[in-house]
């Protein structure tokens, strides 16, 4: 039963993530006055990529994306099985670091710049991610996701500031403008395809699939702030996830890309303000 659950998570999470990516592309197209691709386009893309010849610049750099994918899947499983949120965050960071190392390993100018930017973005959003883990523990008294979602009062009541911070950093995680510095789906970016410049074929498909998993991880974090032991709360939590996802898509289309300086400063300042105020206020009620 346990194995079956893990299996289902590994299979269903990317399917849902892929559908969300398809939806994202349709919404983006509509916002830009286009019709957009079919909903299943991301799957077609990946299938086509898998069938293509892989061209590499050296024999090392593709391993990193596979290792990265494995750890991202690991994170998804830990989170959806109700495991420890800090552990999930650490594993996710490990996955992201391998992805960055892949960019470095190609030793290609555009990839390396992409890696540097990706790493800088990680440094920008990591404090908020850790504060999210810490404050969920502070509010619910447990690091385990299964305990966090079975409280009687949703975490959002205690942690509105931290939640806003989460919405902000999800722009990084979902690779949305204004923070899509390291790589972009759009053509003619100033650093070509950034970190993914030197990947093609199956390796690029793996990167797409990792992104699907990451979308699910991101929305699970949103879910945690709303879910309680009441069954009806699941509905609220899922609607919150949908609204946040829609919001991120709209922001992504409405903004221009920011410089890394602005990305770092704004994120650290917002994290500091929202995190500190929220936790200090909370500590008065504790």
């Amino acid at each position, binding site marked *: 039963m346990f194995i079956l659950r893990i299996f289902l998570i590994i299979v269903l999470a990317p399917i849902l993530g892929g559908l969300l990516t398809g939806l994202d592309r349709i919404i983006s197209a509509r916002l830009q006055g286009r019709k957009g691709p079919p909903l299943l386009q991301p799957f077609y893309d990946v299938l086509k990529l898998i069938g293509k010849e892989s061209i590499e610049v050296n024999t090392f750099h593709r391993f990193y994306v596979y290792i990265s994918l494995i750890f991202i899947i690991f994170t998804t499983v830990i989170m959806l099985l109700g495991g420890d949120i800090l552990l999930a965050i650490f594993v996710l960071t490990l996955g992201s670091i391998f992805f960055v190392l892949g960019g470095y390993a190609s*030793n290609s100018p555009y990839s390396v710049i992409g890696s540097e930017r990706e790493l800088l973005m990680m440094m920008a959003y990591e404090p908020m991610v850790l504060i999210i883990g810490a404050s969920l523990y502070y509010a619910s008294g447990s*690091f385990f996701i299964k305990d966090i979602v079975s409280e009687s009062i949703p975490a959002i009541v205690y942690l509105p500031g931290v939640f806003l911070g989460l919405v902000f950093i999800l722009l990084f995680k979902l690779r949305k403008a204004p923070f899509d510095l390291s790589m972009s789906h759009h053509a003619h970016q100033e650093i070509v395809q950034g970190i993914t410049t030197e990947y093609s074929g199956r390796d690029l498909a793996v990167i797409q699939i990792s992104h699907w998993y990451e979308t699910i991880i991101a929305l699970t974090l949103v879910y945690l702030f709303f879910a309680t032991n009441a069954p009806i709360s699941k509905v609220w939590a899922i609607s919150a996830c949908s609204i946040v996802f829609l919001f991120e898509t709209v922001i992504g289309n409405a903004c221009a890309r920011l410089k890394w300086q602005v990305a770092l400063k704004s994120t650290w300042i917002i994290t500091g303000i929202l995190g500190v105020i929220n936790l200090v206020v909370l500590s008065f009620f504790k």
Partner: protein
Amino acid sequence: MSLISILILFPLLTSFLIFLVRKENVRNAIVLVGGFITAILTVITVVQYFKDGIALSFQNEEVIDIVIVVVEVIMATYIITMGIKNKKYLVSIFAAIQTPLILWFEFTQKKGIDVQSSIVFDKLSGIMVLIVGIIGSLICIYAVGYMKWYHIHHDSYPKRKSFFFAVLFLFLSAMFGLVLSNNLMWIYFCWEITSFCSYLLIGYTKTTEAKNNSFRALTINVGGGLAFAIAIVMIGVNYNTLELSTLIAMKPESMVLIPVFLLCIAALTKSAQLPFSSWLLGAMVAPTPSSALLHSATMVKAGVYLIIRLAPLLGTTSVGRVVTLVGGVTFLACSLTAIAQSDAKKILAYSTIANLGLIVMCASIGTPESIWAAIMLVIFHSISKSLLFLSVGSIEHQLGSRDVENMDILMHVSQKLTIYMLIGIAGMFLAPFGMLISKWAAMKAFIDSNNILIVIILAYGSAATLFYWTKWMGKLVANANVKKITKHKFHIEEEVPISIQAVLVISACLGFPLISEFAIIPYLSHAFGTESLTIISSSNATLMLVMLSMLLLLPISFIPLHKNDKRRIAPIYMGGENTGDNVTFNAAMGVKRDVELRNWYLKDYFGNHKMALLSNIIALTILCVGVLLLILGVAK
């Protein structure tokens, strides 16, 4: 003679012997054998006493005290004369105040004070002895290989190898004494010896820079020693005791807190916390084995060891808060500053100071969980940092540079060193390696003790840590093309200690539940009287171990795949202007230009003196507030 006396005296004797032997081959043999025996002795001692611990006292302690006094006077005379000779008057003043103070105390006040057990071996001393004995002797063995080529690269420095190796062993002896003593006078004596040894090691090359830096180290540490001496006198006069264990068992009232605060100041100077950190950065001028020794197994660990010992008196007291904040400021400021460094040893130095800040934070919070994290951090930091320093030392020999920017060709020069470096770096910050396990526990302990500010500091500091280590790893995996490689000999005395330490990093991570179960938790339940402490639940520990085995097995599973793979290797993309060799591109006017890829150092943000100055001022202010609180007597 008990095993413990042998453990302390053996490195001392080795040190004398090495100092007297001038013949290179014989001396190297003595160092190797001495290091090996020290490690064996360490293990035997720990196996012997670890389970039950032991408290010792000696019959002829008066004789030992006299010897100590004589050595102290000689040392003080030397420091005072050298200070005056080199126009470093501050150090002379410090020494001229503290030694008479200690002498006065020794001969007039100490008579009635009865010291029950001068040596106490408990689980914490056991852990420290293992760190000092094993890591320390590995560093001594490594030094044999390192010094073989050191003077070939730096032929302008005077050769004083006998002196160098002798001081290394003296250092180990003093550290053993420091972590095993329970008598504050003895701890103080060993404390001063380690300060003096680090002065000798830093000044090894006798250049002007080395001289200045060694005096800076001495001044700061002797200043800390002065605080220590005053604390001893206060404790001795007011409470009629000289035992660390008695001091710890006291209630944290304001009369106790003043000497505790002074001891913490001494510990902060030794652990190079802001605003006292400049000496450790200056210590880089010394040959790498001595940096490795200062940064990992000895010296800086003495400071945090003392704070961990004093932890029951810190906690929620004002002294505890002050020390926690100083640690926090140090952790954050040095993690950020490390981003702007490209000299490998500098990055390691800043990371040491930052991690010591983290240990200080954890220890001074004073809850069992946080002390658990602090001890774990000490263990993991020692092993990983020593591995990193030794690797960097050898890399410097192989590449002729220790700039991280030049390490992108390391994979071609030495795959082994690349892997050791990657293991060391992973050990410093990545899940599922050691430092992260401790950080995780620390996070929990900080929230549990309601230290919101510290949680936020930890979050930002960790993000900065992630940045500077990953970009270094990026250079290591870059696998850049090189046209010509000159390979240097990688001595066996270098390779063996490095590989043992790499194995230690991994096995410490695999074995962390055991370390916790059999060493740290028993120590904590003894010190705090708490039973059944779970820090990291067993399911999480299992998951971490699964991850670690995944990481270890992954590279193996990939190797056979790419042998019969039909993948096409193409030149890297350079906007269509790659000349085809991946090293040059067609620039304007048809000129071939070299591709240079550099890491980001964000120097405008983190590399400036303004930040260094600001963080020092903040730390100093916090300390001053602490002093004020104690003077006004508000502190509880």
